């Protein structure tokens, strides 16, 4: 991305974040570094094993995330549909598991 692209992207996302905040559902967001910089670790074998790279080689990677606080899936779908990333990529919705305990 060129610096101009970044500025444009930030504006688009800024508007989205503003809308989330105004609705009182915004919790957190971040852009992530590219998947080629990922480090994966697992302690499943008894000791912590650290590995270079993502946990699965896929074409699509997680580039950013939003944490929002909404009552149900329909509300989440509504907000996810407004996310700028939905225009060119995919948005995956995952519920917090902490809430269901």
């Amino acid at each position, binding site marked *: 991305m060129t610096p101009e692209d970044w500025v444009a992207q930030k504006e688009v996302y800024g508007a989205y974040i503003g809308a989330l905040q105004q609705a009182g559902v915004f919790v957190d967001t971040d852009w992530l570094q590219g998947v080629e910089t990922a480090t994966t670790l697992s302690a499943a074998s008894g000791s912590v094993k650290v590995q270079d790279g993502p946990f699965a080689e896929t074409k699509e990677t997680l580039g950013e995330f939003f944490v929002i606080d909404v*009552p*149900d*899936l*329909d*509300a*989440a*779908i509504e907000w996810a549909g407004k996310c700028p990333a939905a225009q060119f990529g995919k948005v995956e*919705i995952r*519920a917090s*598991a902490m809430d*269901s*305990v």
Partner: protein
Amino acid sequence: MNNAVRAAENVARASYGRLLAILASRSSDIASAEDALSEAFSKALTLWPRDGVPDNPDAWLVRVARNRLIDGQRRNAKLAPEDDMPELIAEPETIVPDKRLHLMLVCAHPAIDPKMHTPLMLQCVMGLDAEQIGQAFLVPKATMAQRLVRAKTKIKANAVPFAIPANDKLSPRLEAVMEAIYGAYSVDWLETGDDLGKEALFLGDVLSAQLPNNAEALGLAALLGFAAARRDARIVDGEFVPLDAQNPALWNEPLIRGAQAMLRRASALGQIGRFQLEAAIQAIHARRIDNELMDWRGATQLYAGLCQLYPTLGAQIGYAVALSHLHGPDAGIAVLDALPKTQVAGLQSYHATRAHFLAEQGELNDAAKCYETALALTFQPALRVFLQEKQSAIVAQL
């Protein structure tokens, strides 16, 4: 059988989906609601014969099941029994509202695999078990059970809401609900031998009762009524009987009259749609119950409309048949020829229809071959008998 036991069973059959919808609507936790409801039913079977049937059996069951759910939630939240959870206190309910439409919308939610919409509805709204559903869909019981559990887990984890979406969002959601009900009807009874016509009719009636001003919901209910009415006429002495050869005396007249009335209500609303067109085609066939001749011109027009609005292969084959009654087998074959070859190659009804047209044209060799292809794709015994007879008649003329 004891009266109280019978009362419990009648309530179970009539109210299952209604009660489940109420119990699951707050938490979106269908599995827990199912467990609580089944415990309430078994309590009823013990207590009602001893203490008498309560004045409002539904409300009694909801109260018992809800207390059970609260106990479960208390245990999960590790609260002491004396701690109050005010929002969960079971209110004595006198009228149990019907939230089955909410439940149907959840079962056919876009976040749920469309293949699971119909099975979920059959289980949640009607209380069918995984074995019965698996049989209809030709899937082993354990596989079906696993898929149902997975879908319910997703509904709970994502808090899929038991809500009626706002107007602009409602119509695609309702379409999915109707598609799922239609799916129960169109589970190929010729393959499974165990059709879900009764269940589909029940679901269609629930939907149309909840949406009395939705023309397509009424149209769907009418369509399912016509189909169910012919149940006893479609196989006679072990042989399949096509619709236009069926004996109207074997049709269920009250069901047909109900479907006719339903379709009239639908068309009075002035919003044409796919299900109303399909029901209207059925209605034309059904007129034979009043000794009227089959109106193939009307049927052809309706099929043409259906093919424009919703061009399924089934609709186009139906159009070919209707058209051939007006203009002969050449016209029918021309319609079939225009269908995509790859899609019809494995379709029994396509080959059987084509064989019939070829025979009418006098192309007996081709007709015999075509019946052979149709037979190779047919497993239902009654339909095999029918096709075999047709084929033997042609081979005898060769």
